[in-house]
């Protein structure tokens, strides 16, 4: 758990340039590919245009050039049985890219989705990939695979034409068969691939099918291997079993940042079958079954020395203090250069508002906690684990054990979700350490409590906003300071000539890192709540006020679409209900959210001792992420993001004191359940002329401010801290 690794997590994902160059170079030649994948035809997809051109020349059939591009984005193998396998370093964790990427390849190859198989996130057989995060798979990997498949189709048609002794122009692909113009001759994929040992490099200048002509992409194809999931047959990392496998358990420090003073392992070692592993600050146990491992770990007596550490009560004061360390990515007081003059903007304003907003630390709590199975064989380490960064975890393992990266293989079975929380490899390292000590494969599955405590959190934050507005509704000044939570989504789409927007890193009391949408949730909550406050200060309708200050057509588009579907302005909330609206932009996705909430008065006995509760009745969200690849799965993602957002908006909050998490369980940390679910309506703006953006994150940002404003609408109470109502509606909320 080095600082270096933490820093990687803090790099904002929208800093695309940081992700362009692979940190690891492949030196494959053609023979390696044939050896690895067998006969058939392999299509290599280089990463950059320059490389494609350079290598493309070398590849033009003159032979003798076995050198392939080092920077490979993906490869596609057509095997002798006619199967098409796509190899990508991306991983599947519920976002359904296994389906959407297969759709992209099937579209361009002119074959049914069913014959496309994806091998994902296996560091020995898939090309390097920085990781599956930042909503990047759809905007970057899908186009790359499309090009590959389009070029592969042309090359396969050439080969088929040769074999059929016809002109390539006369050959089309129908039902995965190559057919000549009068349909007198045809070949299957298998017949074209049979006996070949070809490695082709894909040129970059290949035209792909424009979204308006899509027939496979753009449609609601079901999750490709859904049957495996509904039958329980799919093996997650935590389900992997190896011959002779043992079970591990790690002894955790008493608090964060504790150092080991002394340890007594005698009682544990006396338990038959238990083996204790002690290496520096690491103490773990291995046994033939998990009960024995846990029992042994529990009797290890450890004396930890813990430094005094901040608690919840002082969190926001701590975060306001500038950081004493430099941090990657977000560091250096990010944000942008001030524009115009704040002083002039404030002087021109008829009303000024200055407010502070806060967000709590929250936990990802993916339902599958961190899990890994590690196995050493002939000095080579193989680890199955659920991570969003298989190659990153490979580096961590290589570093931890002082071995070369090619001595480590990380495999990621489709994972029980991540939400940005599974970027690091601590569980993999722990399992590998235990396996090394025993010479046998070891499985380690973190408990829910470990997952809550020893993973990392979404950053807490403090945001100060000062603004000015004219009485006609024109915003004239915007000063925005985000402490600790981050840069994502900090920029405004509103046309405010005088603005100063800054991010200030802090020393976080807790380990923090990426979370679905990063700081965009915090920044949108503060900004959109403040916009609502400005609108109300002028007695203007919050939708009209936004539209007055927005020229961006796509932002106006989602706002108007959401408002129309919601009936904004056409109906008034019932008594005890409230309406709220918000809009946002992040990672090339535009989102607008309308929410209706109800204040439920407590009933039954002890009703007088209980606070009224906020119930989200209805949410309408409009989303524009360019051309829609799979409407079904996109809607599912948006509904999921809205549901996940309910937790952070209403009640999720990590409580901590002096280096300990006080609520590391589902019984003490409330997450959204069936009863919290509103009616959700998703409106998709399918813009066929705009490249598809990712959609796993941005739909999460709009809910909290829309709900907060709806609570204000219902009660007159303005809530400026996330979560908004962890204890229900209390009268001490500021207004």
């Amino acid at each position, binding site marked *: 758990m080095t600082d270096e690794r933490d820093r990687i997590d803090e790099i904002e994902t929208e800093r695309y340039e940081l992700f362009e160059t692979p940190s690891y170079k492949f030196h494959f030649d053609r023979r390696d590919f044939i050896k690895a994948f067998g006969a058939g035809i392999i299509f290599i997809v280089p990463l950059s245009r320059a490389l494609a051109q350079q290598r493309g020349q070398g590849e033009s059939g003159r032979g003798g050039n076995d050198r392939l591009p080092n920077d490979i984005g993906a490869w596609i193998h057509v095997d002798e049985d006619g199967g098409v396998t796509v190899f990508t370093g991306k991983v599947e964790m519920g976002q359904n890219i296994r389906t959407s990427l297969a759709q992209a390849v099937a579209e361009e190859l002119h074959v049914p989705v069913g014959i496309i198989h994806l091998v994902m996130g296996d560091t020995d057989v898939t090309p390097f990939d920085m990781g599956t995060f930042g909503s990047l798979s759809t905007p970057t990997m899908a186009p790359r695979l499309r090009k590959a498949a389009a070029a592969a189709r042309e090359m396969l048609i050439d080969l088929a034409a040769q074999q059929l002794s016809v002109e390539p122009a006369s050959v089309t692909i129908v039902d995965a068969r190559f057919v000549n113009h009068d349909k007198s001759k045809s070949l299957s994929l298998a017949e074209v691939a049979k006996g070949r040992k070809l490695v082709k490099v894909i040129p970059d200048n290949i035209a792909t099918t424009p979204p308006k002509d899509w027939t496979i992409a753009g449609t609601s194809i*079901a999750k490709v291997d859904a*049957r495996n999931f509904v039958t*329980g047959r799919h093996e*997650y990392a935590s389900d992997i079993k190896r011959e002779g496998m043992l079970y591990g358990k790690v002894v955790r420090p008493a608090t964060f940042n504790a150092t080991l003073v002394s340890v007594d392992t005698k009682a544990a070692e006396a338990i038959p079958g238990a083996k204790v592993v002690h290496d520096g600050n690491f103490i773990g146990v291995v046994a033939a079954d998990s009960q024995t491992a846990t029992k042994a770990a529990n009797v290890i007596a450890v004396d930890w020395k813990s430094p005094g550490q901040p608690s919840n009560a002082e969190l926001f004061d701590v975060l306001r203090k500038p950081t004493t360390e430099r941090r990657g990515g977000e560091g250096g007081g990010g944000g942008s250069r001030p524009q115009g003059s704040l002083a002039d903007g404030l002087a021109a304003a008829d009303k000024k508002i200055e407010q502070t907003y806060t967000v709590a630390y929250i936990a990802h*709590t993916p339902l599958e906690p961190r899990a890994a199975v590690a196995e050493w064989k002939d000095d080579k380490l193989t680890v199955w684990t659920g991570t969003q960064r298989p190659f990153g975890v490979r580096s961590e393992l290589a570093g931890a054990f002082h071995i070369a990266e090619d001595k480590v293989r990380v495999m990621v079975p489709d994972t029980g*979700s991540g939400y940005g929380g599974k970027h690091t490899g601590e569980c993999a390292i722990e399992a590998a350490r235990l396996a090394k000590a025993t010479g046998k494969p070891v499985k380690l599955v973190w408990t829910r409590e470990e997952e809550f405590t020893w993973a990392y959190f979404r950053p807490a934050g403090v945001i100060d906003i000062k603004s000015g507005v004219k009485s006609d509704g024109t915003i004239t000044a915007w000063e925005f300071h985000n402490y600790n939570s981050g840069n994502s989504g900090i920029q405004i789409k509103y046309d405010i000539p005088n603005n100063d927007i800054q991010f200030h890193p802090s020393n976080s009391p807790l380990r923090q890192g990426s979370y679905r949408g990063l700081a965009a949730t915090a920044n949108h909550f503060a900004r959109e709540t403040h916009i609502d406050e400005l609108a109300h200060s002028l007695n203007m309708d919050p939708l009209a006020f936004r539209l007055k200050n927005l020229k961006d057509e796509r932002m106006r588009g989602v706002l108007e679409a959401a408002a129309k579907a919601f009936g904004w302005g056409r109906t008034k909330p019932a008594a005890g209900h409230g309406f709220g609206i918000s809009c946002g932009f992040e990672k090339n996705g535009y989102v607008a959210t309308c929410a209706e909430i109800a204040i439920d008065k407590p009933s039954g006995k002890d009703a007088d001792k209980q606070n009224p509760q906020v119930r989200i009745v209805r949410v309408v969200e409009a989303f524009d992420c360019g051309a829609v690849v799979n409407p079904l799965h996109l809607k*599912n993602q948006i*509904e999921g993001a809205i549901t996940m957002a309910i937790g952070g908006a209403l009640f999720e909050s990590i409580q901590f004191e002096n280096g300990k998490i006080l609520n590391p369980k*589902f019984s003490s940390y409330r997450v959204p359940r*069936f009863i919290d679910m509103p009616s959700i309506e998703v409106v998709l703006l399918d813009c066929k002329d705009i490249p598809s953006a990712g959609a796993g994150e941005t739909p999460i940002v709009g809910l909290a401010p829309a709900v907060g404003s709806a609570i204000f609408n219902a009660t007159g109470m303005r809530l400026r801290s996330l979560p908004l109502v962890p204890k229900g509606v209390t009268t001490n909320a500021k207004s």
Partner: protein
Amino acid sequence: MARVTALNVNGKKMTLDVDSTVSLLSVLRNDLGLTGSKYGCGEGQCGACTVLLDGQPTRSCITQVGRATGKQITTIEGLEKDGQLHPLQEAFIKADAMQCAYCTSGMIMSGAALLTKNPRPSRDEIISGMNGNICRCGTYQRIVEAIQIASGTAKEVAK
């Protein structure tokens, strides 16, 4: 300590030899190789480990295996009959009622038990019946729909 040497799982008698205080979930997953039931919390709060004991939905992570002896244990692996999915399994696919699907086994077992007890549950009955199961991906709306499809009430709801 008492041992458990046989269990009835998915209509089959399975022999084993485990301490009766070990959790049923651990025995199913680690000793019997039935990994469809998942660990999610270990405190009966998330429902990922749900199996049926004589038809009753049970949190196998907080149930000692000794309590399951002599009872019919049904796990997700036992719902499919002769290659035919249970109607609720079909409905989950139809409604796209999953993302990462780690909660899916538990959801389907809880939902199947609900439908056995109440073949035509109302929306409110589904919500209260399923509230002990967590889906962190937030597919609740689709899970409700899947249960409605399997119960044949979806059309009525849509009216």
